[in-house]
């Protein structure tokens, strides 16, 4: 089976000078959530920008359903730690923006967006401005915007790292719940080991300078995950394994 998304031998350097990424290869299957785990400044975000088509790699390819889409924009959407909701648009109009950009009429775009508000747990915020929402709610809206942009693959770059611990664990539960419904194939960047184990099907460890994929870990815990999965012995074992691998390299 061809993977949904494949990154093949990507090497990237800024201005052909310092190599940031070297021979990166990874794959993402349909409906899967794969994490990229690594220290900050290790090139994770750069890799995202390459996949999103904002940067062109010196070597290698990005394939969607087996088709070369290297350097093409408008295919993958991503979501960052900052929600980047536009303060002057209502939540509804923010979320519908990717559809409007693609040429959908405003009214219709609002309607399509409106269908998902309940599913994403933000029903009732349609006519509000982002400033009226809490951080967690804003990230939900941002994820819905990402989802409406492309149901193919979503790139999430530390989406929950700016939230406080309680909101964060609430968001994790919400996220697994939503993903269970919409089955969005996702690449998830994080530097939080717990978060990676909790959410992912597989984890790639990105490390070194220039950044390379040093390891791949499969989390065999079935989805939807148990409520107390992060308190189990298996969870701790995964955590030990990952930490020793990160320190070992």
């Amino acid at each position: 089976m061809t993977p949904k998304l494949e990154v093949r031998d990507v090497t990237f350097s800024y201005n052909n000078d310092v190599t940031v990424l070297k021979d990166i290869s990874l794959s993402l299957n349909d409906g899967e959530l794969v994490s990229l785990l690594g220290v900050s400044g290790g090139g994770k975000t750069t890799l995202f920008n390459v996949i999103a088509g904002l940067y062109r790699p010196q070597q290698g390819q990005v394939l969607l359903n087996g088709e070369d889409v290297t350097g093409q924009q408008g295919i993958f959407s991503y979501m960052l730690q900052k929600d980047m909701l536009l303060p002057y648009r209502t939540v509804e109009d923010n979320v519908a923006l990717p559809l409007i950009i693609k040429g959908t009429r405003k009214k219709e775009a609002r309607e399509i967006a409106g269908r998902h508000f309940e599913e994403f747990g933000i029903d009732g915020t349609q006519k509000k401005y982002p400033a009226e929402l809490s951080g967690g709610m804003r990230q939900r809206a941002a994820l819905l915007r990402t989802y409406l942009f492309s149901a193919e693959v979503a790139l999430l770059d530390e989406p929950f790292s700016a939230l406080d611990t309680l909101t964060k664990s609430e968001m994790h539960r919400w996220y697994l719940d939503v993903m269970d419904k919409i089955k969005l194939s996702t690449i998830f960047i994080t530097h939080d080991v717990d978060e990676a184990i909790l959410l992912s099907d597989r984890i790639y460890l990105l490390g070194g300078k220039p950044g390379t994929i040093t390891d791949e870990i499969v989390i065999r815990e079935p989805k939807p995950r148990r409520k107390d999965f992060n308190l189990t012995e298996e969870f701790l074992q995964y955590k030990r394994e990952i930490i020793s691998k990160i320190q070992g390299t």
Partner: protein
Amino acid sequence: MLLLAAWQLICTFGNVPKYMLPSPQDVVKAFQSDWQLLMSHARVTLTETLIGLLLGILIGFLMAVIMDRFIILRKMIYPLVVVSQTIPTIAIAPLLVLWLGYQMLPKIVLIVLVVFFPVTVSLLEGFSSVDADTVNLMRSMGASRRQIFRYVKLPNSLGHFFSSLKISVSYAVVSAVVSEWIGGTEGLGCYMTRVRKSYSSDKMFAVILLISAISLILIWLTSVLQRACMPWEKVNKYRSH
């Protein structure tokens, strides 16, 4: 109120000649006697101001858009724009009259010259202060340059634009009056030169008050327009405190 009362008292009992300092009562009387005349002059001044403002905003907007789009043009034009603002209005006004006649045209040109600058500068500032990550996100969604402009840059600059517009509006009224001083047959500025020459200080005060009132009303209208164009401001301000 106290100030007004003191003023009236000084004029009544202080034996100040009327041509030096008219009392508030005199000013009110001047308003009454010259009301019709003041209104017909005000109409001319207001027309010039509004046409000049609209043209100035339009030109300022276009210049900002062009300079934002083409960096090379920005480097070429921006210094010229700044230099254009260092020329004293009072010096250029007579030249404009000489070149363009005694009608409305030189007045409008002067207003445009004064108005476009704050508009251009503030819009450029607004355009270039957009969040780079947001622009990247829009690009990743496949947004065209025009769409990024429409959905991100333009609304992002509205706040800047309206602040500058309030400045522009008051400048526009003053410029209209100044250019009418220099040459012309109608307008509050003309009226001003006439009453000055006849030492009718009461009428002078009346016309000054009228000009201030016009400026204030225009500034107030700008605020009303701003609130209508930026409904989110109310929410955001309330939330950020």
